[in-house]
């Protein structure tokens, strides 16, 4: 039977297998497995809450460092100036009236209505069902429209050939990249690298929809804001203390 498998049989067998997988596994929760077997759904929306009052400048630097170590960016030899990839960076904001300066970590805000997805000509720029905004680099042609569209300047373009990438984060010349909320860890029930690195009160990661999650409960209690809330993008990353 195997020797005569043609395209149509292949489609038949695979759809049967995936159907049976779906029925068997539907009653089992993610936490019982280390590795995710089912497609993500919109029952969850991943988000992050950053309390800038609890973050020192060194904390933010160490978040950037954690991201570089986890995802393997920052070692590009030939990229200069703003060619250098920046998945997360430290931003200083100043209140013009009072002169109060706050520092905050800025990365992809994982919008509900992401402008980068609207402008992408190949569907590479995408929003996963669970709210994580990603570049499907397999489809990315490197046009960089998404970089222009992003109000947070959160995306970068790889300008040079790379080797020794991280196994879980393939990266290559000619494609756009940005914060993935450490999707490879989140899918296996872990937290993003930058969140793990800092004080657990300062940066909270979790499911915005889940009333039992720490992030949902904290957002109900305290005053928080979205950066450029005026754009109505409904970001997944929220800030308090600014």
């Amino acid at each position, binding site marked *: 039977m195997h020797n005569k498998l043609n395209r149509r049989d292949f489609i038949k067998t695979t759809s049967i297998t995936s159907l049976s997988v779906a029925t068997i596994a539907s009653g089992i929760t993610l936490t019982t497995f280390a590795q995710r077997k089912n497609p993500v759904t919109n029952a969850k929306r991943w988000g992050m809450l950053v309390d800038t009052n609890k973050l020192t400048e060194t904390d933010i630097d160490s978040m950037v460092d954690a991201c570089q170590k986890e995802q393997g960016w920052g070692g590009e030899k030939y990229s200069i100036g703003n060619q250098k990839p920046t998945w997360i960076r430290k931003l200083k904001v100043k209140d013009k009236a009072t002169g109060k300066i706050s520092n905050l970590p800025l990365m992809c805000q994982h919008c509900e209505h992401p402008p980068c997805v609207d402008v992408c000509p190949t569907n590479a720029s995408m929003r996963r069902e669970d709210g994580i905004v990603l570049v499907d680099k397999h489809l990315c042609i490197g046009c960089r429209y998404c970089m222009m569209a992003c109000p947070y300047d959160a995306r970068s373009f790889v300008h040079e050939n790379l080797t020794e*990438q991280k196994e879980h984060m393939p990266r290559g010349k000619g494609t756009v990249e940005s914060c993935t909320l450490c*999707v490879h860890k989140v899918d296996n029930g872990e937290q993003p690298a930058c969140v793990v690195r800092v004080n657990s009160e300062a940066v909270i990661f979790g499911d915005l929809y889940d009333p039992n999650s720490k992030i949902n409960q904290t957002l109900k209690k305290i005053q928080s804001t979205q950066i450029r809330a005026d754009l109505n993008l409904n970001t997944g990353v929220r800030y308090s203390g600014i």
Partner: protein
Amino acid sequence: MYHWPIIFLNLLLATTLAYATEQTSLGDEARMIQASGKKHHGSESLIRKMHPEFLLHKRDRTSREGVRTKKHSLKNCVYCHANKDKKTNQYYSVNKSGQFCSVCHQKVSVSIDCFACHRNTPSKGANNAQ
């Protein structure tokens, strides 16, 4: 429609010939499995013919839907099919000329760009085998 069986037969022939000449490149981990008398892929002719489809299917499932099982994952192909240089104890790149993901492709003039982004050697401490 008659050209399809012919193309298929040709490919089958080409891949089989390629296999016959280059058994040595199978990869350390895969060779160990083979030596123990076990099989990893249910059918060799299936994986030979269908691995492009399997890989592309898995690619979309993982990067767009978050499915992260080991089956047909590219990381895992690399893990099993990479060879170590016995002298230096370093891995050869799996797509280097003469290595597993390259011998057949050279014969049938296929070039793949996957390893421009994907790591072509197992990373340190990797143990993904299923």
